């Protein structure tokens, strides 16, 4: 991010060159002002002040006239303003190495705060706003700006002996502060991208858990379904490890004894193991004669799981327990032990799928 301000404005150059001149002393003074917060300070200082100054000059009549191009007639060049004439004189009289002018007041105008410092009478009749600002120079800042005080560079910059080094440090800190201002409202660091999966509360649970919970939901009562889901997981946690049936094996995983301690893995193994690979579609009109033909269609992972969950919930309806969550939990364990009716349905579908492989030719011929 480029800084908004030009670092090396015209004000900074003489200070680096001749630190002992009045102009340089002024800019050193602005360093200390800049370290203080600028919001409650009456004196607009530092780079932002000089930026404003340039802006004022651009719009002011005297300076703009000087720079205007084009041919000027003999009558169009009146005598310059008194102060400009004096400036010209002094420019000639005490010229500097850099060609700058000697008096800071002529070059940049006089800040109102300096006038007020000199003139006690003017201080007394100053507008109330300015008087208030002068009184409350050590006012409290809002909390949101206090982070800048913590910056170690700023703390250290007070120790600099060399004013020019301090000036550079000041400018760097100014730029840092402005860069920080570009992200308003962030007290701490912005989170790193990409976000973790748990950072969004909608995806804090496993995908399978979400899918099962939504399918457990009855009458749109989601929080009831969440409660049932946690009951099921606790049942898997506390029920004894399953005696696996070798004819209906679960997918490969950890040994039996470790399954209950990881109920999520246990549940995933159960559901993925009974999930069918295909579904059977009854397609009419491709074999001719109006007969429907059974065509196996492969399923995606989510579809497979959905089918398995539906079978398990259907099979659990035959159980006697009055608690729905308990019925489903017991059915899940019986699936793990190879006893559930969901396995029969899976075998049936797979048998039809194998038998229907030959029918896939109809689909090919139709194309």
């Amino acid at each position: 991010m480029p800084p908004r301000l030009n670092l090396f404005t015209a004000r900074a150059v003489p200070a680096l060159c001749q630190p002992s001149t009045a102009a340089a002393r002024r800019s050193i003074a602005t360093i200390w002002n800049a370290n203080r917060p600028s919001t409650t300070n009456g004196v607009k200082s530092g780079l932002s002040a000089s930026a404003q100054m340039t802006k004022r000059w651009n719009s002011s009549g005297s300076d703009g006239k000087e720079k205007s191009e084009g041919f000027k007639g003999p009558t169009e060049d009146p005598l310059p303003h008194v102060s400009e004439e004096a400036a010209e004189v002094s420019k000639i009289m005490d010229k500097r190495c850099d060609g700058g002018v000697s008096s800071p007041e002529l070059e940049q105008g006089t800040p109102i705060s300096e006038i007020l410092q000199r003139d006690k009478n003017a201080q007394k009749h100053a507008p109330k706003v300015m008087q208030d600002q002068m009184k409350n120079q050590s006012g409290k800042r809002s909390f949101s700006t206090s982070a800048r005080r913590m910056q170690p560079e700023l703390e250290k910059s007070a120790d600099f002996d060399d004013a020019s080094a301090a000036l550079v440090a000041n400018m760097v800190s100014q730029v840092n502060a402005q860069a920080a201002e570009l992200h308003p409202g962030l007290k701490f660091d912005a989170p790193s991208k990409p976000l973790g999966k748990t950072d969004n509360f909608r995806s804090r649970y496993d995908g399978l858990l979400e899918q099962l919970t939504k399918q457990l939901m009855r009458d749109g009562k989601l929080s009831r379904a969440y409660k049932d889901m946690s009951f099921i997981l606790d049942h898997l946690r506390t029920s004894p490890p399953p005696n696996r049936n070798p004819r209906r094996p679960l997918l490969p995983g950890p040994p039996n004894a470790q399954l209950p301690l990881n109920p999520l893995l246990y549940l995933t193994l159960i559901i993925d193991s009974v999930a069918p690979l295909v579904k059977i579609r009854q397609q009419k009109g491709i074999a001719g004669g109006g007969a429907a033909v059974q065509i196996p269609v492969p399923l995606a992972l989510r579809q497979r799981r959905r089918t398995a969950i539906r079978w398990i919930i259907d099979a659990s309806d035959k159980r006697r327990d009055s608690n729905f969550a308990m019925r489903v939990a017991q059915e899940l364990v019986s699936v793990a032990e190879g006893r559930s009716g969901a396995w029969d349905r899976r075998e049936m579908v797979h048998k039809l799928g194998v038998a229907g492989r030959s029918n896939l030719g109809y689909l090919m011929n139709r194309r």
Partner: protein
Amino acid sequence: MVSSFCWSCLTRLPTASPRPMLPPTLTAQRVAAFHTSSPLMAMPPKKKAPGQQQGPKHRTATTFKMKKRKATDRVRPPPVGERRALRKRIVLSNPNALEVADMQDISAENMVDSRLRGSILGLPVPMLDQLRAVQAFKPKQGWSIFRRPGTVTRRETLELGRLIDGISDKPEDKGKVVKRIVTGPRGTGKTVHLLQAMSMAFTKEWVVVTVPECQDLVLANTSYAPLSEKNPNVYVQNQATAALLSRTVTANQKVLSKLKVSREHPALKSPLKRDTTLEALANLGIQDPASAWPVFQALWTELTATSPAPGFEKDFASRPPMLVAVDGLAHWMKETKYRTAKYELIHAHDLVFVQHFLSLLKPGNNQQSVLPNGGILLYATSASNSPSIYSLDVALERVAARQNRVYPSSPDYPMPTAFSHPDERVLAAFESPKSSVPTEGTLTLQTLAGISREEARGFMEYFARSGLLRQQVSEEWVNEKWTLAGGGVIGELEKLGRRLTVPVQV
């Protein structure tokens, strides 16, 4: 005479009128006029072979018929009491969970050890029967997922441990009575605090008397009757009292079987033998619930006795301190579901059982404290099952104010708002002036809040070491959960610990 016509001619005479021409009949019936058998008897047309005709024909319109799901018949409802038993079932062990290696049991030594703050102390297995007998465990407290029950040692626990230790062993604290009402938001561990107090009291061989659920006494679930002819407005609950005796005897059998009666009890039906143990005395009330209340009074007198009556000196042993734990106090501060003979609601303070336990909050009389042998009264409110009773709120505020030395004479002393009609009996029940006995403390209020971050860390590590939490327990993670749990509310921390979220991908 012979006719002029011959017979043959006569027969050939043409008919007078031509025969009427009928149109040919169309029906077969008319044709076959002479058949007498019914045409229905004929062979019926042959039906086509089944299978070809069934079902709707190809490309004919069919009406949509929704299949009715066959209702699975619930054969019969479960037997009476089975569902309740399932609901109230307390499971204290999960054999699948891992055993935490260096978990200590609560004992007389480590209940005052402040180094153990934030660690989990297990409940000793022999004590579990006692704790079950006094119904210290509640069904939804989440004991069932750990290998064995254990509790977090928090700041309040250690303070309680020192108190119990002092009353038992230190001579300067002998006979000290501490009266506390335990309150706090939901899930902050009030009931478990009582459980910890009971476990420590069992360790020190105190007598523990509990009312595990105040609501059971006011729901009109147990029988009730006027106390006597003289006191028709006070009601006794014999079954509930017998249950209380049963709890007390089962849990404190070891202590009570050693103690003998120390005086005559004329209120009992039959005089007792001299060497009757307190266990046998209590069993009288369990066997005959009609006499449960006099037996309970006799037992209470024996337990609070400091010296034997004349003639009973031989078998007298000094009585141990007592712990009285009551849970769900707010249910005792309103009208019950019981009715008088005039069909008016009975106030809970008219039940003699309730009266007895509430009178313990007051200072004792006859220059004796309510528990002359020392002990602790812990009365806990409930935040999950609690009727909203304004008078109780004010009364508890007053207790807290007196604790902070704001006395009734002060303008800051909490008063019920105007026209709120507070229940004066409730307010009076918690008015506890300073006792004349120096060892008897005044009623204080103890408000439990969330546990500290260090204690929360110990709790979360317990989950991880039991194998229930598959996550790295770091400082940052614990702080996050501590904040999510409302500043360490331990019930919420427990929910977060067992919740299966997606692990953080690093």
